[in-house]
């Protein structure tokens, strides 16, 4: 048992480190280090602009999408090399946020299901940051039950014509392309009537509208399709095979190993170590210590769980299912920790400005944003189902709509 690199890994790390050292935009280091909860705040720059510049530089240095094959813009890196790169890229990795959905989900789907022409045309541009991609899966009536989606694609000659609405699309407003799943046959059961496409987000009839979220911010969009034409050459997989294609995308979403999820523990520890209560420092209060300790061991448990997965990659093995707990644990923790920190602040905890008493409102921001962590990318409930069914081998849910033609399923709700 040790935490050391193999000689090969150490050599790779050294190369990566030197490149980052020589090329990274160091002037942004301090601001990037402070950004938490996946939210990047840069005072004088647009994240898409600086992101594109960094991605382009990485591409030219052969560090972009490094686990992809060389012919599609990568460097054929092994999974452990990708982890090492992420560690060395460090806070600058946050700059690539606009490309994460393309690199992590859309790219791998195109790679698995696209024509050779599509792969050669789009993947290198995606790696170079010249194309930003978004994922058009969720709908107002199809969230966890994404196979229940309603957006229609109808064949007209050599083209498809799309009508409908998607929601919760991150980055749709600055994306060049989108990966779209749509219903092509409503007369068969819901999983069987779906087909996957990709489309130019500037196609006529595509309308992107920002969503004002519960936390007051706008990071996601609704996307409306009105008679949008997609050439059949932009279909991924066979007609009716969209569900299988989508599983490639979603599997890649959950495979992100080694990326550290925010838990709120370092922030809470720091806060408690400096907060003066009536009887002394908060961190000397037995009740506070007990809470802190319980969260600290969850946080360290997640860290060492990811180390176990990295070790499996290092040995060339597939990591076990234990990595599936990450988002479930960290999402709930963020919310609980924010609530607790505010409780310690007393009445002032309700203030959301940059007040001194609340350490610039960091826990208030965490509280307001944390519900999304428990929903996006699989709700807590869906994640528990996945653990129960795929890890523990428990039976799947009884699905009353499984064999019913889609257009006979009762629907309501949003």
């Amino acid at each position, binding site marked *: 048992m040790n935490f050391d690199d193999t000689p090969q890994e150490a050599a790779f790390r050294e190369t990566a480190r030197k490149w980052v050292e020589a090329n990274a935009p160091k002037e942004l280091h301090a601001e990037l280090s402070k950004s938490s909860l996946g939210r990047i705040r840069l005072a004088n720059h647009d994240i898409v602009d600086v992101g594109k510049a960094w991605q382009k530089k990485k591409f030219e240095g052969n560090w972009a999408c490094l686990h992809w094959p060389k012919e599609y813009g990568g460097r054929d890196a092994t999974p452990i090399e990708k982890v090492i790169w992420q560690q060395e890229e460090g806070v600058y990795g946050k700059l690539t946020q606009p490309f994460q959905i393309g690199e992590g989900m859309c790219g791998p789907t195109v790679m698995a299901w696209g024509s050779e022409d599509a792969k050669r045309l789009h993947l290198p541009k995606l790696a170079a940051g010249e194309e930003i991609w978004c994922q058009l899966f969720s709908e107002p009536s199809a969230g966890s039950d994404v196979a229940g989606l309603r957006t229609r694609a109808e064949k007209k000659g050599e083209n498809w014509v799309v009508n409908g609405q998607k929601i919760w699309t991150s980055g749709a407003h600055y994306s060049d392309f989108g990966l779209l799943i749509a219903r092509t046959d409503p007369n068969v059961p819901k999983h069987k009537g779906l087909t996957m496409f990709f489309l130019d987000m500037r196609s006529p009839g595509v309308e992107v509208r920002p969503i004002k979220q519960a936390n007051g911010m706008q990071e996601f969009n609704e996307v409306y399709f009105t008679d949008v034409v997609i050439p059949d050459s932009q279909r991924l997989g066979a007609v009716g095979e969209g569900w299988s294609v989508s599983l490639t995308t979603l599997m890649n979403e959950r495979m992100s190993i080694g990326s550290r999820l925010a838990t709120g523990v370092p922030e809470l520890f720091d806060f408690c170590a400096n907060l003066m209560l009536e009887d002394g420092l908060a961190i000397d209060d037995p009740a506070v210590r007990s809470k802190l300790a319980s969260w600290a061991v969850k946080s360290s*448990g997640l860290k060492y769980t990811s180390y176990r997965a990295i070790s499996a990659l290092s040995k060339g093995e597939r990591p076990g299912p234990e990595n599936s707990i990450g988002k479930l644990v960290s999402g709930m923790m963020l919310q609980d920790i924010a609530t607790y920190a505010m409780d310690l602040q007393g009445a002032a905890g309700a203030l959301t400005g940059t007040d001194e008493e609340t350490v610039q409102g960091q826990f208030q921001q965490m509280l307001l944003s944390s519900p999304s962590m428990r929903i996006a990318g699989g709700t807590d409930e869906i994640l528990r189902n996945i653990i129960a069914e795929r890890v523990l081998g428990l039976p799947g849910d009884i699905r009353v709509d499984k064999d019913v033609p889609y257009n006979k399923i009762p629907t309501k709700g949003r």
Partner: protein
Amino acid sequence: MNFDFSDDQKQLRDQARKFLTEKCSPKAVRIVLDGKAPYDKELWKGLAEMGFLGVAIPEEFGGAGAGHLELCVIAEEMGRANAPVPFSSTVYLAAEALMIAGSDAQKKKWLPAIASGETIGTLALFEGKGNPSPKNVKLTAANGVLNGVKKPVADGAIADFTVVAARTGSSGREGDISLFLVDLKAGGVEVKSLTNLDPTRGQAEITFKDCKAELLGAAGEGWSILTQVLDRAAVLCAFEQVGGSDRALEMGRDYALDRIAFGRQIGSFQAVKHMLADMYVSATLARSNSYYGAWALSTNAGELPEAAAAARISATQAFQHCAKNNIQVHGGMGFTWEFDCHMYYRRANAMALGLGSLTYWEDQLIDHMRKKNAA
């Protein structure tokens, strides 16, 4: 990075599991549970023959000289099997105390006897309620003679010798405490069995009356040695708790697959599935924290106190969580004496207290994290 046990260590774990599956079935555990024997003597003998008792004891003292990682994988299996033997008190507490602080003569006298299964040892620390703390040690030692009462002492009624924490000064500091070795067969002690949560691991009260004892380690060093022993034992116990958590989770999962209600497997109801998924989460966090503890223990790293506390807290919570919800998944049957669920429930809750309660370990963790952050 190789944050995993080696193939040899995993093989040893498999070997221990196979051995315990054969020799330590729930039926065998029940003989001790039902009070028909104080511990499983045959199993103890077998563990000695397999070399498990002395796996971390150096070869020159009769052990296998393997190491603590090897002891960790065996501990996991002992916990999984709910083994009714004085393994933790003898191997994690007495043997570790001897290895940390014993003189050559003391090691020669006791360690080979532990490895061969002839001798059971323990640690007499607690005196009634309260967590490990120098001020809670009232038993006195003067000129090598002990007077006072220890309670509870794990496996005290079957132990041949014990390490005793005694007061040798009155400055109010840690230096007031010294450790002693007492041969419990040599007189000067009265031993009384106590009923406790987990009858598969006994507890006793030991009264020392002008009892002769010899120093273990230097006078006044007792507390410092003791915290090292507790840190090591915390990691090793965490592996037992991880093994127990996994077993309780498996029992719940198997029952959920087997039991039919409302015309279908109860494991198909989300209320049950989610409960089991949460147990898996706890058990996984505990395992990962315990691996870090194992690394720190096996390399004698400066991080050991923090790693041990994290492993202890995480594994204690996981075992309690899994054992309690295992009963819940079983419903009424889980509350019968006949089903094995309560054996894990008892063990989980007894183990949560044995080395000091969560409050003590939470304090330890926060203190060490603060030191690290300040550095």
